[in-house]
Structures are given as C-alpha cells and as structure tokens.
C-alpha cells in the first residue's frame, strides 16, 4: 500500500494501538499527524519512529473532547499540509481493562456511562465534524473509527466502555449513509483484547488463556495486528466498503 503524499490524522497515537497505527502509515510513506493529550515525550518518540520508518510526522497536543481544541488541530494540519485524507479516531477515555476489578452493573451510575460516551463518541463526533467540510470539498476521504469486538460479544462486560463503543458503530453507519454521496467512507475496526498496552496490562494470564482458547487463530492480538486492517480501510483497496465493522480478533467474533 502506498500512502505517499497522503495526510493521516491518528488521534490518541502517542502509545499503544494508536502509536502502532501511526508508524504503520509512516512505513508506507504517509505524512502522519500524531495527536496526543498527555505525554510530550511519548508523542515525540512516535514522531521519530515515524520519520525513521520512511514517512513524515509531527505531533499536535489537543484534547479531542474539546471542540475548540479539535478545530485548532485541524486548522493547524490544513495550514501545514493543506489537506486531510484519512482520519483514525482512536483516542478514548483512559480505561483499565481489569476483569477482576471492573464495576458490576449495579455499581454503575449514569455518570460512568456519560464519561465514556463523551470520551469515545463525543470525541469521535468532534473530529468528524471538524474534517467533514474539507473532505466534502475534495469529495473524498476515509474515516476509521476504532471500536472493540466487545460490541458484538461482551466476553467480559465492561459496560460503560462497550456501550460507548457500540454507539460509535451506529454513529459510523449513519455517517456512512449520509456521506457516501460525497465519496467519504466511514468504517470501524473492532480489535479483540490487545496485549500489551497500558490499558490491558492488568489483564490476568487466566483471562488471556480463556480468550485465546476460544479464538480460532489461538492467540490474542498485538498492536501490530490491528494496524493492517486500518491501513486497508484507509486505502483504495477498500474503495467500495463503507459502514462496515472489521473484527480483528483472530476469529473470536464471526459476523
């Protein structure tokens, strides 16, 4: 896949899956915008890795929960690169996937759900709104929203997280329907448990073994596994696909 001269925005890409996606685009020659919220140092490392792997990159610190910050980020990209070809909405509210200490449904308040709906759905919405205008003008664009295979099979019910991710699937299908006529495609990528990332570090071996014993490809996902399908959906290879959710979980979910 050749992403030379393509401008790719990956939100929440200073670590974990986002960082891997950013570097994978860079390897294919893309100009990657590494959006992040907290660690300047981590973001800089990703930028350097992107540059070393054959692409170009720079980082922008912006809270995707804030409409103003997102607008500012998109304006900066426009003034630097003149366009945005692909957006990967990967940022989400920090969440520790700890099956032993997760909240049970009767312990959850609406605020818990709201926090994740804001962190996942609202932030995705903010970024989509900010890039729509320029993608429509160019009559092309690919938006990839990162969700989770928990939306189809909550093997462990992380209620607030999965509910927010499920909302993104519905949101994306509606966007896909409306934006198809402008040549803009909107799809989702739904990884299974990805290890190791900061969020999944607390997941016990027993749980990993339980999941992989039910996974046809017999292992759990690594960040590298997730990047491929994201690049595919960003590329022209998937030009006739929109509104889809691709599960990247070794076959645990089959739909």
């Amino acid at each position, binding site marked *: 896949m050749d992403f030379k001269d393509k401008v790719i925005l990956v939100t929440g890409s200073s670590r974990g899956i986002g960082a891997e996606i950013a570097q994978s685009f860079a390897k294919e020659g893309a100009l990657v915008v590494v959006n992040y919220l907290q660690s300047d140092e981590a973001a800089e490392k990703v930028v350097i890795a992107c540059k070393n792997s054959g692409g170009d990159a720079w980082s922008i610190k912006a809270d995707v929960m804030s409409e103003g910050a997102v607008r500012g980020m998109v304006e900066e990209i426009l003034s630097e690169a003149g366009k945005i070809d692909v957006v990967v909405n990967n940022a989400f509210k920090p969440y520790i996937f700890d099956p032993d200490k997760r909240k049970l449904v009767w312990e959850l308040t609406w605020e818990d759900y709201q926090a994740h709906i804001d962190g996942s759905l609202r932030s995705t919405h903010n970024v989509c709104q900010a890039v729509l205008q320029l993608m429509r003008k160019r009559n092309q664009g690919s938006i990839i929203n990162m969700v989770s295979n928990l939306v189809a099979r909550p093997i462990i019910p992380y209620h607030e997280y999965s509910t927010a991710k499920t909302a993104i699937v519905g949101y994306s299908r509606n966007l896909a329907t409306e934006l198809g006529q402008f040549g803009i495609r909107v799809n989702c990528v739904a990884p299974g448990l990805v*290890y*190791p990332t900061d969020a999944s570090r607390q997941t016990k*071996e027993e749980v990993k073994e339980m999941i*992989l*014993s039910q996974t046809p*490809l*017999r*292992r*759990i996902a*690594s960040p590298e596994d997730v990047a491929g399908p994201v690049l595919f959906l960003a590329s022209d290879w998937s030009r006739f696909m929109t509104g889809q959710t691709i599960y990247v979980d070794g076959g645990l979910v089959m739909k």
Partner: protein
Amino acid sequence: MKEVGGYLPPCLEGELEYKTLTFQRNQDTVEIQIPLLTREQMDALTDIVKRNSRFILKSFTVNEIVSIIDKAIAIFLDRSSKYRQKAEKLLPIITGYDEEIIRLGLTSYLKSFRKPQLQRFLVEDLGNPLLLDDFQPRPKGGFSKAMGPELVVHVWAGNVPALPIWSLISGLLIKAGNIGKVSSGEPLFAGLFAQLLMEIEPKLADCLAIVWWKGGDEERESCLLNKADIVVGYGSNTSLASLGSKIPLTTRFLPFGHKISFGIISKAGLDSRKAWQTAHSAALDVIRYDQQGCYSPHCFYVQRGGSVSPREFARYMAHELECFEKRYPRRGLSLEEKTANAAWRNKEELNIFSNSSKEVLGTTSNNWTVVYEEGSQEINPSCLNRVVKVIAIDQLEQVIDFIGPYRSLLQTVGIASTPKELFDISDLLGKAGVTRITGLGSMTSPEAGWHHDGRFNLLDLINMVDIECSAEEYAERFAPYVD
C-alpha cells in the same frame, strides 16, 4: 543504568576493586558493578562467613529462618516493591528474555519459596524439621540432630534467571554459611535477594556473600573451594568436571550438569477437543526460557491412533510456537547460537532426502523449528532456543528403548496420558533413569520440595549427628540424682 551487584558482609575490611559487566538489549544498557576480591579478601571473607554461620545463623530456629525468607519472597512477589521492579526491569536486559517471560517466570518460581512451600520442603527431606534446631528422639531409639556445615560454596550458572536462590535458600535453611559465585550471564538476582534478606534481618549480614570472578580464575576459585565444606556446582559437564578436579577429596561436591528432558503424549491427549490444549501446553514448555533449563524438553514422543495424528500434532505445535513468538518473543541469539541453529536445521533438511516421511516445519525467518520424524528414534539433543522434534510412536513403552543410551543425562518427562498409562510408564521411565515426571505445561515449574536430579535438596547438605541409645543409657548412671 548502573547497579551494584553481589553482596558482601559489612565487616569485610579493605578497599574493594569493582569489575563492570555490561549488558545490552535493544536500546537499553545496564552496567552491573560487581566486587572482585583479592585472594586475601577472599580468605577473610570465608573466615567471616564461617564464624558467623557458627555463632549467629545457627542460633536462629529453622522457623525463624523460614519466616525471614518468606518475608523476602513476599516482597519479590509484590509487583509494586522496588526489589521486584528492579528485577523486572533489569533481568530482561541482562538475560535477553522477553519482559513477560521474566515477569511470569519470576512469580511462578518465587511462589515455591513462600512459608507453606518451605515447610513442605523441610518435611519432605527431614520429616521433622526441628531436627535442624535440636536433638530429636528417633523411632529406632536415641536422638539425632541435623547439622549444617559452616560453609557451602555455590557456583551458579546463568541459564535461567533467579535460579541461584534455590540452592542459596537450601543453604540458609540448614543454617550454613553461604558464599555464592554468580555467573557472568546473570549476576544480578542472587545479590538482590541477599541485600533484601539483610534488610529484613540485619543479624544475618555477615552470614553470607555473593561474589563473582571470571570463569577459570584459578587463584580465587581454589582459595574458596579449599575452605568449603560442600560445593554445589551448576553448569555444563565440562565446567563441572573442571570444578570437580579442583575440589579437595574430603569436600562434598554436588554437581548439577546438563540434562535431557522430553515429553510423552498418549493418543488419549489427541482427541478432537483436547489436541489443541495438549499442543499449547507442550509449546509452553518449549518457549519458557527458550529451553535453557535442565527440565526443558528436547523432543516429544507422540502416540499414533488419536484423532489427531503425530504429524498433525507437529503442525499444531508449529502454530502454537508461532503464536507464542508473537506473545513472548524469543531472546536475541548470540552468533554462536545462531550458527548452531542454522547447522542443526541444515542437517535436518538434508535428512529429508533419505527419509521422505520427515518434515521440517518453519522457515529460516521463523524463530522456532519443529521437526517431525517417524521410525525408531533415539533422543537427539536439540540445539535449543525453540527447536524441537516430534517423533511418532505406536506404543508409549517404545520410548524406553530410545532413551536407554542417555540414562545418566535424563531428568524430566512431561506427560499427557490417562492415569493408568501415567503410572505404568512412570515405573519404566524411573528404571531408565528419569527422575521427574510432570504434567505437560509444567515441565519448567518444578514443585516445592522436588528432588532435583533425584536427589534431596537439604539432606545432601547436612550431616546427621546421632546420640545412640547406649550413650543415653550410660549417662543415666552418672546422673547426680541417681538413686
């Protein structure tokens, strides 16, 4: 990163020379500064450790020693403790093993030294652990006490991280003074453990030492070996033979050399549902510490007649090894290891021309190799580092003929079979020289109180002192209160 390795008693005087051992993995470097003692310092050290073992360590009850070790282990099991974090951070750089392998390996290994496990350890060898504290009545009459020596010298290998503390803990339980020589391959953990023990019980500060010298440094070596009561050595058979030749005849030498371990899989473990789990467990035994342990499998004998054939099983294993490579990547190999791997692979591939049923799975770009073979096959030691053979057999008992020539080298067998098959084959394996039979997937995690190479961990380190009945009866005559 810099770290001071080893451990020396505070009362050892004089200026110390330090040697720096440098390790690198990916972008990380760690320098371990380790004291290199002069001959005079080594002499002084043995005197200090002997004296303090006699007067201080031997004044502790065995239960007190168990509690001190238990506290240290609890700290090493606590992932938020600075000791654990240091081990998790530095051991991957030092040994090259993946962080996850180290993290999981440490927890599974250290769990064997918690208080209940240590108690089992003691009872397993001694029956009555109080024998270490005082003369205890014997069923045969009379009394006995288990006496630890004044000085046990340990010469450790670096193949499996943290392994040295097994013999160190054994030495402490029998109240011996201990001096351990760490290997250049893993000079960290024993020293860390000793430092923590002293933090927990400062009275033990002069009862043990962790030192280093470059292999073959005869001056330092002989100085220590001449003063030891017992020498426990780990390593290759060549290095142990050389070590043995330097030990005085009257000193007890306990060598733990290279061993061959393997797996046996009955057709009962190869039905449509369980075959995957069996392959998963077998692969787990292969990838843990890249087969560097004496208990790591070199090959698997797989019985025909299950739903999954031995050939299919080899393919299952290949896939499992590939999956594990993603989850726990193999450590970077030295040039020597790479060459050995390539040569082994070439030889196996050439053999395909004369043996058409043979199959070599995995390509040179894979960090593992599975070779499938049929026909009667003696164990062919693997070049290790995730290289394994799957050998088809018709009957489990056939294995006995194949392992015959390696009697003195056999150690662990990992088995997947029915309970009846387990006991039938275990008897035969024992007669053939095998000393440990374990479930598949547990080959690299010996249980607390296991008999390493069939021997006793503690009994081999102690002397029993008997007060015979006659002495007791004779003494009665001289009691001041005799009527």
